[in-house]
């Protein structure tokens, strides 16, 4: 028989082709089933995140609303005296914005770059209609500040729609027209400090969760069913309780007139006048967050421990290991996938925590997410919020990558 002869199906087509057809059909079906979910994820997750990231580097408010001045600023070198032509275009754009009621948007945008310029724009726009040439003179007459170079430099910077400025601000730097990037004054630095603090608090919460969660998970996995079930309910009950309820419960427990302090005063550990500050500071944030995130550590640990046969430990003991040695050498290494999963889960959740630090954090227990919320809700500087969020996302991805390199993501076991 000729070995090169392809095997054919009953109708004479090569079997290979037939198989490919069948496979293609089933693949099509499978894809058809996945498409709605994929579309949902794209529309509700990937697309908004990308759009927000885009806002962190792109803000065309100034270019869009001040088109004439934009042309002039493009060719201006940024250090020489502004020309009459530039002032004329400024007046033309201000008039248009006054008529369109968009002057506030321009003013807000420039004010983000140089504080104290909002009223400069709004008040001059109000008078723009009556201004007469030579514009340089008449504009400066309305407000002296228009003669200052830094106002024009700020406009030149906001004039770039595609800008690294917001990311620079997120790292406590400023962009300048002539000297590149410079670090901000020590007193104005905040974001790098908050990023570091966020990492530190998340790290401490993760470690505390591991310390507290490991024994609990061990008991859950090894106790007889009737006790372990009861214990499981005690772990899950708070897990199912609202986040806000748990956080406010901690306020009642930890505040200076609260349960813990009352108890300490009663026992005599501390005097009535020198009660401990356990809340509205970093301590409060760490305690409340550890409690809230504990189940995320216990459950993956438990699911791993449950699969470790008790016979391994018995074998180690029978070969002469002390209980401690058997535990460290035999049991612990097998729980690493659970530690990895729980640790990563707690850490990543903690890094974006917002409500709990806002309620119990006081001044030194705030995280970077509180600043993001602040810029979204209060200052309305969405571009800066997007840049801060972008850095946070980037940080988490880097950590995830590092984890994958060191421990390996395949070793993780979530349940």
């Amino acid at each position, binding site marked *: 028989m000729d070995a090169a002869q392809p095997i054919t199906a009953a109708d004479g087509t090569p079997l290979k082709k037939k198989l490919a057809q069948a496979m293609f059909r089933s693949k099509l079906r499978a894809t058809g089933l996945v498409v709605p979910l994929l579309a949902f994820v794209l529309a509700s997750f990937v697309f908004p995140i990308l759009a927000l990231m885009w806002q962190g580097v792109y803000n065309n408010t100034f270019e869009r609303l001040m088109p004439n001045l934009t042309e002039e600023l493009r060719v201006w070198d940024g250090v020489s005296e502004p020309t009459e032509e530039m002032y004329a275009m400024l007046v033309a754009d201000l008039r248009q914005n006054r008529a369109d009621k*968009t002057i506030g*948007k321009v003013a*807000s945008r420039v004010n983000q770059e140089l504080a104290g310029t909002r009223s400069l724009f709004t008040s001059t726009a109000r008078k723009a209609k009556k201004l007469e040439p030579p514009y340089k003179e008449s504009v400066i007459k309305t407000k002296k500040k228009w003669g200052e170079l830094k106002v024009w430099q700020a406009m030149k910077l906001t004039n770039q729609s595609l800008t690294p400025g917001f990311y620079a601000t997120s790292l406590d730097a400023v962009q300048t027209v002539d000297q590149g990037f410079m670090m901000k004054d020590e007193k*104005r630095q905040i974001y790098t*400090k908050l990023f570091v603090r966020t990492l530190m608090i998340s790290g401490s919460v993760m470690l505390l969760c591991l310390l507290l969660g490991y024994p609990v998970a061990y008991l859950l996995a090894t106790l007889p069913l009737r006790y372990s079930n009861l214990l499981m309910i005690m772990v899950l009950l708070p897990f199912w309780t609202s986040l806000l309820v748990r956080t406010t419960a901690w306020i009642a427990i930890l505040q200076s007139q609260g349960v813990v302090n009352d108890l300490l005063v009663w026992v005599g550990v501390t005097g009535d006048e020198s009660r401990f500050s356990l809340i509205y500071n970093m301590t409060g944030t760490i305690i409340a967050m550890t409690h809230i995130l504990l189940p995320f550590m216990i459950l993956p640990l438990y699911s791993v421990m449950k699969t470790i046969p008790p016979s391994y430990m018995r074998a180690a003991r029978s070969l002469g290991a002390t209980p401690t040695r058997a535990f460290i050498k035999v049991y612990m290494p097998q729980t690493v996938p659970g530690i990895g999963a729980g640790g990563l889960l707690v850490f990543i959740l903690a890094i974006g925590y917002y409500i709990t630090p806002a309620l119990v954090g*006081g*001044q030194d227990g705030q995280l970077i997410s509180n600043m993001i919320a602040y810029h979204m*809700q209060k*200052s309305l500087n*969405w571009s800066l919020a997007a840049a801060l969020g972008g850095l946070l996302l980037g940080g988490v991805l880097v950590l995830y990558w590092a984890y994958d390199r060191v421990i390996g993501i395949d070793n993780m076991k979530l349940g």
Partner: protein
Amino acid sequence: MSGLTKKIVALAGVSAFVAGNAVAADLTVVSWGGAYTKSQVEAYHKPWMAQSGHSIISEDYGGGIAEIKAQVDAGNVTWDVVDVELSDAIRACDEGLLVEIDHSMLPDSPDGVAAANDFLPGTLHDCAVANIVWSSVYVYDTSKVRNWNAPTSMADFFNTEAYPGKRGMRKSPKVTMEFALIADGVPVSEIYDVLGTEEGIERAFAKLDTIKNDVIWWEAGAQPPQLLADGEVIFTTAWNGRIFNAVAAEDQSFEMVWDGQIYDLDLWVIPKGTKNLEAALDFVKFSTATEQLAAQASWIPYGPARASSVARIGTYHSNASIQMADHMPTAPGNFANALQNDFEFWADNQDDLNERFNAWLAQ
């Protein structure tokens, strides 16, 4: 905002849109909650609903213009009338987020004084009509026995030697920085001149540094009475109406220190694009009439924005022995050393001072 993001915001608003359509006949009035909203419900909402046949959905918020901006930008406005602070009203109006209000439609006073003359100076703006004057003061609890003399001045608030203990303050540079300068001896007439300079800002922060470790920062208006009642703080800054309410309605023994009070306006604004413009305008017109503003003052001691209403302030709604006029920020006994919040200063410097304030807090 780019067109791209507009679309996303619009997409996000779809669910709200469905809900919003079902209740289009109702007017959504948004205010600050607590005793303040209660006073508005009693004095404005109920009589207006009875008269117009519309119904009102009352919502609470925490101030700021973020929600208004989001709704207007997404083209799906669900808030019809909003109670805002003056600097926010000015800012939102400049950004084109609000409906312009024709002042000539506002009703004259019963004595025939035209609205434009009857409203107190500075209370009518292009997009906003003021309803009340409120004030930030500081408070202490007289029921707690302490071995100090009752505080009388803003300087006492910052004096941790004579008055040791925690203090509550609003987590915002607005008012906080002015308080610091007043306590540091700057006359109220010069506060914003001083705060406008670099040295003035440094001076305010230096004064705040002296109490930084003793401060518990609050964010919602309902928090300070709670902190004080719990004994968590010995002093707290607060809005005068909330404190009055805690005293008159909840029998707390709080005492206000009026020295160095900072007063501000609350105003009605209408977000651009509301589906109930006519009803919204009618509500603003109705609620800022002389009788309604005077009626509100019998529920909460915030000063009415009309001269004719000031003359008609009566007694507390549930206790005729309390003369509301005595508890107003503008009462002669309270007004001796008062400062008006400078909206233009804050509209200009809010972003910068917020940033510095947050950096200072994080240090």
